[in-house]
């Protein structure tokens, strides 16, 4: 979710966070727990039928969430690049049922089945996570994690990182502009490495000093380790209906998978 843009600034990219769909309006805590539960259920499936149905369920939830398709495809492409490498190795590393041979390599039926199963499950989990968890702004995600009793320190790091990644990125960009204004052009030479090293060093020192100033500002306003929030979460009947339906569907998948 973190991008370093061309001009050196860093932004958190949250293309799914804005929206008014049925899924967006559900309680963030409920969505997070459901996403986690569904990941466990889908990961446990062993049969292709159940995994296929799982993917269909994920596509259905994604369609309710009305996700913008371009960033969605980009995210799915990223995860499927990993799957591509799986397809390069897994079909040739099992013994059951020879299908065809390429030189010394033997592609097995069992191997292809396994790679296909992994692909189905991965895409289903990814789609459900994007639909349920990526559809909330990052600060909301942080506070929802806090309400779900995620450790305070992790929540703190998450929320502050979201705030300061931007500032640090801007600082880096300012330094690069200042350098280029004094006729600095990066080349493959020791001078360039030394300059970039110095800039990076300054960035670390400044960030460290800033963090101590921020910590002071936080203690001055009574901070004692817990990031509290005015964001209020209310689970409604509609949320319960949504989560029950989804969990029943997932449990049904697991049951079906065990029966086949």
């Amino acid at each position, binding site marked *: 979710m973190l991008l370093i843009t061309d001009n050196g600034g860093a932004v958190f990219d949250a293309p799914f966070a804005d929206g008014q769909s049925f899924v967006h309006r559900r309680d963030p805590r409920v969505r997070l727990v459901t996403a986690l539960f569904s990941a466990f259920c889908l990961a446990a499936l062993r049969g292709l039928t159940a995994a296929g149905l799982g993917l269909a369920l994920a596509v259905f939830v994604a369609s309710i969430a009305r996700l913008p398709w371009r960033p969605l495809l980009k995210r799915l492409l990223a995860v499927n690049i990993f799957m591509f490498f799986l397809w390069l190795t897994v079909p040739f590393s099992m013994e059951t049922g020879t299908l065809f041979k390429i030189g010394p390599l033997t592609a097995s039926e069992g191997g292809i089945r396994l790679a296909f199963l992994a692909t189905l499950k991965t895409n289903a989990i990814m789609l459900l996570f994007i639909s349920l968890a990526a559809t909330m702004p990052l600060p909301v995600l942080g506070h929802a994690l806090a309400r779900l009793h995620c450790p305070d320190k992790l929540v703190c790091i998450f929320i502050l990182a979201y*705030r300061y990644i931007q500032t640090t990125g801007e600082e880096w960009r300012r330094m690069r502009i200042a350098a280029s204004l004094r006729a600095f052009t990066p080349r493959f030479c020791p001078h360039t490495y030394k300059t970039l090293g110095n800039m990076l060093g300054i960035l670390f020192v400044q960030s460290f000093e800033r963090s101590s100033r921020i910590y002071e500002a936080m203690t001055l306003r*009574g901070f004692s380790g817990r990031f509290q929030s*005015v964001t209020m979460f209310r689970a409604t009947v509609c949320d319960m209906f949504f989560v029950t339906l989804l969990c029943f569907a997932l449990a049904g998948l697991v049951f079906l998978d065990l029966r086949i």
Partner: protein
Amino acid sequence: MSEIPIFSLEHICFSYPGGGRELFSDLNLSLARGERLGLYGPNGNGKTTLLRLILGLEKPGRGRVLAHGTPIRDEEGWRALRRKVGLVFQQAEDQLFCPTVLEDVAFGPLNLGLDPEEARERSLETIRLMGLDGFENRLTHKLSGGEKKLVSLATVLSMRPEALLLDEPTSGLDPESCARIVRILQNMDTARITVSHDLDFLCAVSSFTMRLEAGGLVRDI
């Protein structure tokens, strides 16, 4: 007998570790309810350090700080004083660490133990008071310099402090934003120490001024 001051510094000596020169030798200062002190002086004479000493961000070599007449001995004492005395940094950037304006203004009240509903209401009220209506959901890092200054003042005011310490509240602001800060400060009777290089501004928002000379404070008449 006169009223017990909100805080007082007694016989403070201070020099930065390894800095050599003594910044303060036997400095005394106190602030009572309703007092509005304007503080000025050359760069490097320790105006900011003085504010940091009051809240225990720096510890004096000798001397002591009293809160409501009681010497502060431990971190618990500092924590209690910090709940009652608010400091507005010169660099607003460092004071705004929450994603949105509302979350940032509510940060102090929540830490004071208010429940989310109360904290939200008090924060919205403070935001309105500062003339920042409609800013509550803006992202803090996208505010302009002047807006950051006003919001950072709001984050401290929402804690309803007994006293305020303002470090260069107008530095880098355009005349219009300056005038706005002056208006807000003139309408507020909270005791405060304002540090600035701008004497006109200091006189407009303070009931008396002091000059920080090398080593000590001199009161203007």
